[in-house]
């Protein structure tokens, strides 16, 4: 039986004929060969006509689902028993097949029991297939097409709808964390609506490391506006063979997002609703000093600071500031299909309040996907998402909470805000903060699929992605007073208001020609295309002061707020306007991929993309990205037939080049900057302009060359499925901003972008899944992980500029990371400590310090270079923020109507720098470990004598923590009501569940979370007092009717 899928089509009906089998079919074959040269449409029409001429022939449609999950089964083969007439289901599990009744239809799918159904003229046949303890053969979405997993020669990981909604999060990409090997999703902050950092296979650039997202064919930078419930599947393209089709944008990986579409289901619309409500709370408190302990330590630092340490107040700022906050997520969808169209409509509401007051995020997601079968040769369709959102951003009071002395009170007796020396009263900052960001993101495309012949399809798609955001930030005039009635530093003399807006619009026009053909044992699947994209953006910002009244209805800019000479306020210069430097470019691309499969066993893939980008000057505008891959389905070889242990085995290897061009578009230009000159008496402002930043007209693309070797296998009838990948990727010509000699006159901190660095990422990924069923007990256990070896191979070099990148600047300007050849990107750099000086004699016998006068109880820094002086030359590498191993463990159990799911994730081999503890220009509160301080010879060799700052707070390994952690990320317990109960309330299916996210984290780090993300690669793993990550407990309901 040879059944083939036609890829990349919405209607996937393909006929395969073996003429010798039956009389009808012989006749059919004659027609078929006779009309082979005609358009597919004509053939098809004729065939329908031919079938209907024999009155018994009619078309049956339906959907095939898995009995256990109720998920549809794309790629199921259906054929009329005793003939070679057949088809396979499309990506949504739908099929349509003309059949001559009576007949027996055979439904088969790898991993499921084959089922035979008596056909007696039904128009609709919905079939459920039982698991055969052999895993299902997936259809995988790849760039500009789909492919059966067994025909895939690249490295692609997939996650399906049911797993995407397991985590309650604003951004669907959170669902990839711990579920896909080689992908790391890290929250930068726990603030509602904040986007996480996503990295695929390590860090290969100093620039934007984010993968690109392809949502139903439209290339995007972000998917936070999508509703997880609207997504059918996400595929992560990891190796060069898979990503090369996205050429210049593939280097950071590609995440394909396919949203849901309608399915034929018993001829009516399926409604489904899911609702979830939960609470979030601070997952972990930082152990800080109490008032009494703070008084004790203060007395240690300066005797007599507090006469009676038992009589001081004790304010637990964390308890006061962090609250329990609600989170809700509701979603309603309707989907359905007929012979001529299918549709999916979804509307969702997500609302999350932060555990810090005045932080909120809500979005309403609307989704429409529709596909119309206009004629047998033309499909038209639309995918559309419109998401209005509203965000309130709280000031970052976490750092204040960490620093505020516990002896201070938030309020005076009269209820007014108390002064919190040195850090400001967090409640006052919250009270007077009004920072809002509202906007709408709309994304969609319309497309046409034209089938020229049954082998050749043309698709054109015009996509739009637009966003408009407006921001309002109002701070009233206020003063927090000292106890003596004078004004403290925490005040805003004049109320101020900032209004800002930005808009972005991208259009993307893609044209592809797909060709699928089988010649005996050969199969070719090819796609070629031409695409154009243009992105523009603009922002505008204006600040006024001394707003006439505080109320929300006055939050509009008025000329008198900008020109206010009466109050010495003249803020004309705070009006600014420009384009987003990352969002102003155009691209032209040519793409090609051919997949050749021989005997169903040998796969060869070649991919090529040429990209031209406006970000580079004419000479460097175009770059070319080839890739090659091969796969071998070993288990289909004769010699494997008798090896029952191994049910599946595939080897694959790929090599290719991809690019990264995510840099600001202006870096090649040398700009003229504008200034203000001041002359006259009284002073007046005059315009001034001169040479500003120097550009580099020679900039070109970053190129990543990646090799991947993979093995996929199924053992014991696919009870155990295992996938292994080894990858090795070198990114060269990395665009890096290098310091140039000061005499170039660019000014402090100004850098020039060069193609001047090279980075290696190497690793091993595995994904193991065991599933089985014992009686009514079904279970699956998965374990996946990936190693990362990150190493800088080159910086600077021929450009003659610096070979060291300094980064990770703390709030006081001290850098914590250093990047140079032989080290990972953003490695920590500082002093190594060797205990605490116990006596003055020990100090006297130790190498001379250049600056500080030391006391017993101070830290002993190691004289690394052995020159007899402790100075900055003794700093060294203290570890990497990049984990060496990240892993995830999942377990799912089903017993009768109960289901249970557990997901654990973690990482090891990385370090965290506790930046928030180091920066202390003023007396702040301490972490509790200070109580174990040195108080005299022999008392401590770890914790130095306490001090409010100074020598012991130099950047050293004292602030380095092991970043390893294991987190219970997701626990779900569900119960599905018996079907007859559900039916009584007109439901098809009703499931209720309870869930906990981020339940517990095992970690040695003292901060809120060991998962510290950063947008900048040189600033990774530094805890500067981030908005804490929360634990979420929720209850939910899923129902379909």
């Amino acid at each position, binding site marked *: 039986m040879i059944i083939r899928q036609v890829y990349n089509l919405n209607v996937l009906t393909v006929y395969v004929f073996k003429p010798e089998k039956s009389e009808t079919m012989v006749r059919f074959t004659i027609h078929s060969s006779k009309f082979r040269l*005609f358009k597919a449409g004509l053939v098809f029409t004729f065939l329908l006509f031919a079938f209907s001429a024999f009155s018994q022939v009619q078309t049956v449609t339906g959907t095939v689902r898995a009995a256990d999950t109720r998920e549809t089964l794309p790629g199921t083969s259906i054929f009329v028993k005793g003939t070679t007439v057949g088809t396979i289901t499309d990506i949504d599990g739908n099929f349509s097949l003309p059949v001559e009744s009576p007949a027996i239809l055979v439904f088969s799918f790898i991993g499921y029991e084959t089922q035979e159904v008596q056909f007696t003229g039904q128009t609709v046949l919905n079939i459920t297939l039982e698991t055969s303890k052999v895993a299902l053969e997936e259809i995988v979405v790849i760039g500009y097409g789909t492919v059966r997993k067994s025909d895939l020669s690249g490295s692609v990981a997939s996650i399906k709808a049911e797993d995407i909604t397991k985590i309650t999060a604003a951004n669907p990409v959170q669902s990839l964390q711990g579920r896909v090997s080689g992908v790391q999703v890290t929250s930068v902050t726990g603030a509602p609506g904040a986007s996480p950092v996503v990295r695929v296979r390590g860090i290969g650039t100093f620039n934007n490391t984010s993968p690109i997202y392809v949502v139903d064919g439209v290339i995007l930078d972000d998917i936070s506006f999508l509703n997880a419930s609207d997504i059918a599947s996400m595929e992560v393209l990891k190796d060069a063979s898979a990503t090369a089709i996205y050429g210049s944008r593939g280097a950071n990986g590609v995440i394909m997002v396919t949203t849901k579409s309608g399915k034929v289901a018993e001829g009516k619309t399926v409604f489904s609703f899911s609702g979830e409500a939960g609470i979030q709370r601070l997952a972990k408190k930082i152990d800080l000093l109490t008032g009494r302990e703070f008084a004790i330590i203060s007395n240690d630092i300066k005797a007599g600071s507090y006469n009676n340490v038992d009589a001081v107040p004790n304010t637990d700022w964390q308890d006061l500031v962090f609250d329990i906050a609600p989170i809700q997520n509701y979603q309603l969808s309707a989907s359905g299909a007929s012979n001529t169209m299918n549709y999916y409509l979804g509307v969702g509401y997500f609302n999350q309040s932060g555990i810090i007051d005045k932080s909120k995020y809500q979005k309403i997601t609307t989704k429409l996907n529709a596909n119309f079968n206009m004629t047998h040769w033309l499909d038209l369709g639309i995918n559309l998402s419109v998401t209005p959102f509203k965000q309130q951003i709280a000031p970052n009071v976490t750092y204040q909470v960490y620093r505020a002395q516990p002896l201070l009170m938030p309020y005076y007796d009269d209820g007014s805000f108390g002064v919190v020396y*040195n850090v400001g009263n967090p409640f006052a900052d919250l009270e007077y903060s009004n920072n809002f960001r509202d906007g709408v993101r709309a994304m969609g495309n319309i497309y046409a699929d*034209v089938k*020229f012949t049954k082998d050749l399809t043309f698709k054109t798609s015009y996509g739009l992605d637009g966003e408009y955001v407006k921001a309002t930030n109002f701070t009233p005039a206020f003063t927090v007073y000292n106890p003596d009635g*004078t004004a403290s*530093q925490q005040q805003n*003399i004049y109320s101020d208001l900032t209004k800002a807006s930005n808009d972005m619009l991208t259009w993307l026009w893609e044209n592809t020609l797909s060709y699928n053909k089988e010649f005996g044992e050969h199969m070719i699947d090819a796609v070629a295309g*031409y695409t*154009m994209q*243009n992105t523009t953006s603009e922002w505008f910002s204006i600040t006024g002061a001394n707003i006439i009244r505080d109320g929300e209805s006055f939050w509009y800019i008025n000329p008198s707020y900008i020109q206010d000479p009466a109050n*010495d*306020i*003249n803020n004309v*210069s*705070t009006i600014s306007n420009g*384009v987003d430097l990352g969002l*102003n470019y*155009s691209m*032209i691309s040519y793409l090609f991929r051919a997949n050749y499969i021989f005997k169903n066993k040998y796969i060869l893939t070649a991919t090529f993309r040429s990209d031209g980008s*406006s970000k580079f000057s*004419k000479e460097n505008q175009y770059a070319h990205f080839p890739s090659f891959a091969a796969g071998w389905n070993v288990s289909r070889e004769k010699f494997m037939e008798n090896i029952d242990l191994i049910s599946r085995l595939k080897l694959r290897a790929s090599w290719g080049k991809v690019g990264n061009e995510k840099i600001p578009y*202006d870096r090649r230009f*040398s*700009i*003229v900057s504008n*200034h*203000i*000159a*001041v*002359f*006259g*008496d009284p*002073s*007046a402002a*005059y*315009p*001034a302009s001169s*040479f*500003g930043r120097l550009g580099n007209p020679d900039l070109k693309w970053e190129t990543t060359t990646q090799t991947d070797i993979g093995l996929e296998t199924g053992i014991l009838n696919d009870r155990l499925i295992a996938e292994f990948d080894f990858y090795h990727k070198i990114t060269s010509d990395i665009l890096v901003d290098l310091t*140039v*000699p*000061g*005499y*170039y*006159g*660019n*000014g*402090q*901190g*100004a850098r020039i972008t060069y193609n001047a660095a090279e980075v290696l990422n190497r690793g091993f990924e595995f994904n193991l899944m065991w599933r089985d069923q014992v009686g009514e007990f079904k279970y699956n256990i998965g374990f996946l992980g990936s190693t990362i070896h990150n190493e800088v191979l080159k910086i600077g070099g021929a450009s*003659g500029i610096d070979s060291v990148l300094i980064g990770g600047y703390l709030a006081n300007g001290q850098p914590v990371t250093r990047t140079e050849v032989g080290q990972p990107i953003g490695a920590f750099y500082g002093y190594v400590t060797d205990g605490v000086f116990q006596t003055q004699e020990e100090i006297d016998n130790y190498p001379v310090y*250049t*600056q500080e006068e030391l006391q017993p109880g101070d830290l002993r820094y190691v004289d690394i270079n052995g020159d007899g002086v402790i*100075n*900055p030359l003794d700093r060294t590498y203290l570890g990497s923020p990049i984990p060496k191993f990240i892993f995830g463990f999942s377990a799912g159990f089903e017993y009768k109507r109960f289901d249970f799911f557990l997901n654990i994730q973690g990482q090891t081999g990385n370090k965290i720098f506790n930046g928030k503890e180091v920066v202390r*220009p*003023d007396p702040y509160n301490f972490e509790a470990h200070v109580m174990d301080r040195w108080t005299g010879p022999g008392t401590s060799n770890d914790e130095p004598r306490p001090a409010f*700052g*100074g020598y012991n707070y*130099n950047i050293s390994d004292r602030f380095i923590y092991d970043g390893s952690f294991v987190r219970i990320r997701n626990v779900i317990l569900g119960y599905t009501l018996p079907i007859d109960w559900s039916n009584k309330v007109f439901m098809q299916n009703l499931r209720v569940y309870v869930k906990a996210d981020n339940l517990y984290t095992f970690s040695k780090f003292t901060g809120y979370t060991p998962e510290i993300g950063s947008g900048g690669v040189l600033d990774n793993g530094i805890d500067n007092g981030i908005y804490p990550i929360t634990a979420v407990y929720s209850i939910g309901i899923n129902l379909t009717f």
Partner: protein
Amino acid sequence: MKKINIIPAFIVILFLNGCSDFLDKELQNSLTQEAFPVTESDALLATNTTYTTLREWFYHSGGYPILDFMSDDAHKGSNPNDQLPTLGPYETFGHTPSQDGLDRWWNTLYLGVKRCNVVLDYVPEIQMNPALRDRYLAEASFIRGLLYFDMVRAWGGIPLVTSTNPPASLGRSDAEEVYALIIADLEVAVRDLPERNEYSGDDKGRATKGAAKALLAKVYLFRQEYTKAEPLLMEVINSGLYGLEPVFTDANSVNGNHGIESVFEIGAMQLESTDAGGNQYANTQGVRGTPNRGWGFNRPSLDLRNAFEQGDPRLKGTIIDLGDVIDGVTILGDGSTPDETTDEDGNVIEVECYNRKVWVPGTTTITQWGHQRRLIRYADVLLMAAEVLNENNKPGMSIFYLNMVRARAREGNNSILPDIMITDQALLRDIILQERRYELAMEGHRYWDLVRTGKAPEVLGPHGFVTGKHELLPIPQTEIDISQGTLSQNPNW
């Protein structure tokens, strides 16, 4: 059938042809350097920018007044821990080539040089009013000389950049070459700049012939070329365009902005932003806490306080103490800064006090941003004249100008600050140096005065000054690293 196949290909080709410039995106919202400066108004814009460098916070010795920290006039200030590891070492000459601020100062001075070079490279090519062109070139030459003079005093020989397109690997010129350029630039400025009264009122703050002469004289003074300095100083004095403010504090205050004593000052707007026209110089040193919410750096030392002659009003014209009432505003100071700092033996070594020279009336930070720093004031010109005349063996004239400065300081109280009658060259030399301290303390002169007069080892030795090393600052380590061996470090660093 064939037609349908052709359509998409046709569309594609159509677009390809129609969009040959599709990938050409111009820079938005900025000129590129290829297109500037080309007009007369461009020439003015470029010239104006040479002055904006002087309002950059980093222009002022990297942001913090480290030159005063290194002198006997001042301590770091602010509260004890504030910037202690970054700024504290300057007080004790414990600073290193990586010390905070050195790179900022270096880079910003070169930023200023580049802005001058834009004018000097391109304005000569512009078709424009020749008189105006000469003035613009002279203004840029003056600013470039001013910047290089800071550099040569701070670091000695440095890479000498005279065009907007310097070579990729430039080594240090020796100090003589740097001085040669400074002198040449300032000679152009002396020749082509208008006198202060030849500018319109809107142009106050631009470089003048008088300022150029005073600066060039100062250059000669530092080079001990007294005979070259003398005529320049006498021309400034005899021009009749300058004088002393009757009240000492007005020499630096808002009352004296662009006043009779101002030879060259940096205009500023009262706006809390450098980009908008403000200058953070005074805010950095302003009273910490109430009323100014300044940062409180540069704390006058007890040594300075005790140095003043009995009754010299310039003591209170230099130091703000807690409890003072200035311009109707009471000084309360900072709650987190100790009022007194003592050593192990209980001796008071510092008291909380602030720099009066940057005082701006007001109770907010905003007003401080409008402070107009005087880079050259007439009292300095008179004291330079006194010094030069003494060196040129004209002690009578020397004490004449010296006593002009003392007379103003007296502010009418004849019981204090008697006229100096000593004419012995060596004694007078010391007296003039002392007078410079009283008159110009906390204005950034003292450290360099001690170094150039050879007094630094004696006065600053107890602070940690090492002869043969601390006369110069170390070249910033980042510059040494970037140069990959082209730049050498100063001796003994």
